[in-house]
């Protein structure tokens, strides 16, 4: 119990101090661009009503989910194929290295050319940006399947789909998750800027509208919402990762204790 209290104290102390400092330091601020925290928090419930959440946050999240899921499926599938064949990998490697190195945001103007400015454009942008980290990490993971495990599977007749499911994908899962984590932050960036570029709703669109209309406290609340969304998604991701990669972290911890 005391232990728990101590941990809670550690977790909450600094955030509380920071919020207090922000509150006090900004309280009598007259700078238009840095409104008092009090004002921002008072504005918050007025701006982010249930309607707003439905009309702006939900579309953003749906676009992100769609594009991200598309990228995850395509990246893992193609990455598994490339990673399992040495020659295919050699052929694709230079092209993939180049495509991965293209900063994803420059995709927005290109994809706008043929996909217009609707939801399709945003989903395609998010998917094309997110697919590379997933794909390349999957290639690495699949390539690195332990030869002894591979032989074990062969000698027990574990082949085909079962081999893919029980050996290849499981053994590559730590790398795949590393790729998915990178892809998540790329996805959020692309979600926001594709909406800033061209949209009629969404978080990125709304925040830019506030900024252009000099609704500064509203803009600050928008930044807070984006921050909360990023935090929330990362917590969600960590929960999923802990479930799927529990064995991996457990094994690492156990080898660390006894080398």
């Amino acid at each position, binding site marked *: 119990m005391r232990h728990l209290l101590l941990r809670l104290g550690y977790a909450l102390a600094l955030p509380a101090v920071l919020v207090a400092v922000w509150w006090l330091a900004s309280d009598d601020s007259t700078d238009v661009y840095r409104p008092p925290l009090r004002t921002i928090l008072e504005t918050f419930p007025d701006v982010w009503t249930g309607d707003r959440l439905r009309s702006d946050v939900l579309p953003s999240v749906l676009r992100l989910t769609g594009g991200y899921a598309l990228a995850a499926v395509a990246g893992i599938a193609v990455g598994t194929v490339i990673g399992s064949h040495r020659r295919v990998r050699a052929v694709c490697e230079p092209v993939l290295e180049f495509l991965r190195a293209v900063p994803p945001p420059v995709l927005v103007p290109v994809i706008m050319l043929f996909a217009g400015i609707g939801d399709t454009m945003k989903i395609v942008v998010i998917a094309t940006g997110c697919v590379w980290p997933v794909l390349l990490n999957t290639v690495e993971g699949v390539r690195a399947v*332990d030869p*002894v*495990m591979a*032989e*074990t599977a*062969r*000698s*027990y*007749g*574990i082949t085909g789909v*079962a081999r893919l499911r*029980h*050996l290849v994908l*499981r*053994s590559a*899962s730590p790398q795949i998750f590393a790729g998915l984590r990178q892809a998540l932050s790329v996805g959020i960036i692309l979600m926001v800027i594709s909406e800033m570029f061209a949209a009629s709703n969404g978080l990125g669109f709304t925040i830019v509208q506030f900024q252009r209309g000099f609704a500064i406290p509203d803009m600050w609340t928008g930044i807070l919402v984006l921050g909360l969304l990023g935090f929330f998604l990362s917590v969600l991701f960590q929960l999923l990762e802990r479930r799927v990669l529990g*064995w*991996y972290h*457990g*094994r690492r911890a*156990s*080898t660390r204790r006894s080398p």
Partner: protein
Amino acid sequence: MLDVRGLRKVYEGSGRRVEAVRDLTFTVGAGELVCLVGPSGCGKTTLLRCMGGLLTPTGGEVLLEGRKVTGPPPGTAFVFQEYGRSLFPWMRVAENVELPLKQKGLGKARRRELVTDALESVGLADAAGAYPWQLSGGMQQRVAIARALAYEPRVLLMDEPFAAVDAQTRADLEDLVRGLWRERGMTILFVTHDIDEAVYLGERVIVLSGSPTVVREQLTVDLPAERDQLHTRVAPRFAELRTHVYEQIQAAKRGIAPQDTPETQDALAKADAPPKRDALVKADVPGDPDVRTDPPPSR
């Protein structure tokens, strides 16, 4: 049961040719426990992998119950030296044991029965729900053995399974394997570089030469079937047998210098064809009628 005929394996890659196994011929009868022993790096593992269908031999063939082995045969189970890398760390112990059975298409009830039975046989009934990496090395190798047992193989191939565990665990595991063999009556081929282990475990010991590998001698171990660590290892007969095998292996190491070029090795091999091997055997055990050496296999 298991026939190895004129087996030869040459590794080729990046401009180098390595002849790991030259010409191996021997048989293992049904229900036998045979140990293969030889100097380190003599291609024991290559041989076993060819027998398990994991490697394709360059020449010769392996027959299992009269049928040529081309891929992993269904009635064979493999236990690897690297237990830590042969069990899947993302599966619990019971799942590891169960996976090959699922692949075999067995029903759920039957699978559960086999898994429980196998884990009980190796003394790990309590560890079913643990992950392999939560267990000690010896226990992990027990899990690998349980997985092999549950598979109900007619032939069990074991590749230096105890090379990486500590001495006490090793003794326990040796007794476990011998016990399981007597209980279940399967054919076991056990590869090791440890002479004591080979003599203690085997009903027959096949001594291999240094690389490139040929069969140097086959030796029947005439120790009683009931063996235990305490008495068997101090028995005079045990000492005689292990001394004999030891001398054979020392001679094998001296036999062919590793620096030799392939051409001279070929010439050497031709020069010491069967007669010389016989001469060596006789020279090594002068006036010891108790050591029965099987005649070299006919080609």
